[in-house]
């Protein structure tokens, strides 16, 4: 359908007859209506919709031009006409919607009569009036898909809002999928009617076989539903696995960095613990070095002891027990009897009283040795402390290095998306496990389905054998078989066509969206799932349709509409100057981004 002429008579602000031609040139195939606010751009858009579909009669306010109304006399008939001429499949059409008003008072008029005409001129130049103009218009461009071809730019982002079913409806209606659905439903219903008739007219045995067939078919249907559910899970799982793998691939660099950081953090922790232990050991070692502070006192003590020795105040070599033994034996070591020597015993006794206890004497004798020993031990502790301090310095240096390396990695990771790689890998592993389970389940169900189909075929053969015995059932049986086969064929076509439609629209929407979106690098994918739910996948692999800005939604809507139109037309994207993807676009959006997008499409 290509519009080439619009003519309005007394419609809204269009006084009298006005007409606009739309370019049908191959190279200049875009027509732009440019005007100030209130000039009548939207009215022209509304005039087309009103003419072709009668849309907006109750919503557009008064349709009749006010100046014409004021100028007319009471009881005058005032025509309001919009004519749209278009070509479609080598034929030219003229659609005309008319309202004849009759002026009743100074500023009022009532509708006297209204009509809608559609005339068609074929390639030979023969013109005829279409008897069911609304039906014909509907067959050319169904009313329920009108808004996707004549769309209002101001509300374009509504189409891709996440809280409505417009996308799903648009695909279903534009691709005329309900026709296939209805074809299947009716054929299936008629096949069942034939079978019921066979059951009624046939023998008891045929009735029994049909009942068995029905039971088997019911089980088969249930199995197919189960299979489809698992298949859907598998598809989703496959998609999720693919998404996760993509994230992992894209974050390979981050993953290495994260692994390196984890490793460094581990080493950092170990070194910190080691440093803590070193500090404890240093503390212990320092405590053991207290003799260092007593070196002077030790030396003073040694000096005092030596002086005392020199003065004889501390007897060296004479011990208390030795003197006691001498007195008890009463002989001196020279052989003289002590008691014979005058005053000798008293002298010895005085030595005892002047001598130190054996313990003290031992201490005094050992003191120099002990002090040397303490010095040696202290030196050992000192060496140990030096070693510990050196170790501590080394560890601190290593900790500083590690800290710097971790900081560097953190800085690099800041520039990359913060993706929890470990968690994603865990998820991936779970999904892969689930996939395996589902694959096994689907194999089992497929086996059961094949088994049921085999049983049904056996029943059908059995029934045919019985039916042959009854000649009158032959035609009925054939009809049932044809209806059944036709409905099965439609079901297969439906599944295949739905899938092809989905893939095509998904691919085309993605191409256009990524081409038009300014921040296209922020989005990695557009997906249309099997329920025709459109989703935008962001850079991180997450659904983000709900987060799109109004401008991005406009772009998405535009991309989707282009995809739909091209799906119908079979055009190949990106849209070129020679083939513009946009049908008729009332562009009055306040968003500059869309202006740019449209300009790009036009370019």
């Amino acid at each position, binding site marked *: 359908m290509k519009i080439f002429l619009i003519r309005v008579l007394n419609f809204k602000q269009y006084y009298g007859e006005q007409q606009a031609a739309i370019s049908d040139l191959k190279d200049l195939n875009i027509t732009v209506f440019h005007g100030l606010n209130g000039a009548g751009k939207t009215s022209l858009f509304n005039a087309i919709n009103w003419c072709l579909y009668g849309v907006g009669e109750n919503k557009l306010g008064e349709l009749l031009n006010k100046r014409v109304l004021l100028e007319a006399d009471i009881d005058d008939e005032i025509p309001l006409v919009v004519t749209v001429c278009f070509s479609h499949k080598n034929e030219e059409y003229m659609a005309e919607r008319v309202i004849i008003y009759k002026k009743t008072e100074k500023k009022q008029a009532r509708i006297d009569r209204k009509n809608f005409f559609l005339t068609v001129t074929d390639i030979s130049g023969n013109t005829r009036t279409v008897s*069911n103009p609304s*039906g*014909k218009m*509907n*067959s050319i461009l*169904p009313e329920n898909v009108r808004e996707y071809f004549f769309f209002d730019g101001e509300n374009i982002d509504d189409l891709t809002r996440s809280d409505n079913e417009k996308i799903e409806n648009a695909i279903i209606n534009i*691709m*005329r999928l*309900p*026709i*296939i659905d*209805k*074809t299947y439903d*009716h*054929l299936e*219903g*008629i096949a069942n009617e034939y079978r019921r008739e066979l059951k009624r007219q046939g023998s008891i045995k045929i009735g029994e076989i049909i009942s068995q067939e029905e039971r088997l078919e019911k089980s088969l249907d249930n199995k197919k539903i189960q299979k489809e559910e698992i298949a859907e899970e598998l598809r989703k799982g496959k998609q999720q696995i693919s998404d996760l793998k993509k994230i992992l691939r894209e974050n390979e660099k981050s993953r290495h960095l994260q692994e390196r950081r984890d490793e460094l953090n581990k080493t950092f922790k170990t070194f910190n613990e080691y440093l803590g232990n070193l500090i404890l050991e240093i503390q212990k070692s320092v405590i053991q070095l207290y003799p260092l502070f007593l070196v002077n006192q030790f030396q003073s003590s040694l000096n005092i002891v030596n002086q005392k020795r020199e003065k004889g105040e501390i007897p060296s070599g004479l011990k208390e027990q030795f003197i006691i033994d001498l007195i008890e034996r009463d002989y001196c070591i020279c052989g003289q009897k002590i008691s014979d020597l005058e005053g000798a015993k008293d002298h010895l006794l005085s030595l005892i009283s002047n001598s130190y206890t054996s313990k003290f004497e031992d201490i005094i004798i050992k003191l120099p040795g002990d002090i040397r020993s303490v010095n040696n031990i202290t030196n050992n502790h000192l060496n140990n402390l030096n070693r510990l301090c050196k170790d501590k310095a080394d560890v601190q240096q290593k900790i500083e290095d590690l800290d710097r390396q971790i900081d560097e990695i953190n800085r690099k990771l800041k520039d990359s998306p913060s993706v929890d790689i470990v968690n994603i890998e865990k998820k991936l592993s779970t999904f892969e496990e689930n996939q395996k389970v589902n694959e096994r389940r689907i194999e089992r169900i497929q086996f059961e389905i094949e088994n049921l189909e085999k049983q049904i075929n056996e029943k059908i053969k059995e029934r045919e054998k019985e039916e042959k015995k009854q000649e009158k059932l*032959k*035609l009925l049986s*054939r*009809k049932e078989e*044809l*209806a059944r*086969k*036709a409905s099965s*064929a*439609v079901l297969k*076509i439906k599944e*295949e*066509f739905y899938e*092809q*439609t989905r893939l*095509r629209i998904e691919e085309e929407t993605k191409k256009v969206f990524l081409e038009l979106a300014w921040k296209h690098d922020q989005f990695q994918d557009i997906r249309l799932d099997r329920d025709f739910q459109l989703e935008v996948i962001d850079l991180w692999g997450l659904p983000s349709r709900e987060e799109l800005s109004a401008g991005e939604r406009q772009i998405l809507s535009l991309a989707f509409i282009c995809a739909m139109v091209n*799906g*119908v*037309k*079979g*055009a*190949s994207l990106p849209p070129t100057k020679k083939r513009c993807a946009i049908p008729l676009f009332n562009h009055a959006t306040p968003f500059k981004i869309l202006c740019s997008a449209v300009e790009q499409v036009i370019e």
Partner: protein
Amino acid sequence: MKDLQSILLDLFDDLDSDIKGIVSEVYLIEREFMDFYKKPHGINEKIRDVIDKYAKYPINGEKL
């Protein structure tokens, strides 16, 4: 690139001639009813006629 309606027709082409005839005719009936009539009154009769025709006069096979 083929448009989706052409893809749909290709899918029809893969069918056996009798079934293809029935499916195509029924599809056209459905489209006509969807475009031109508000309610599908009488559509089943039309479909039955199509099936009856192919059952009695199959393209490939013995006439009944």
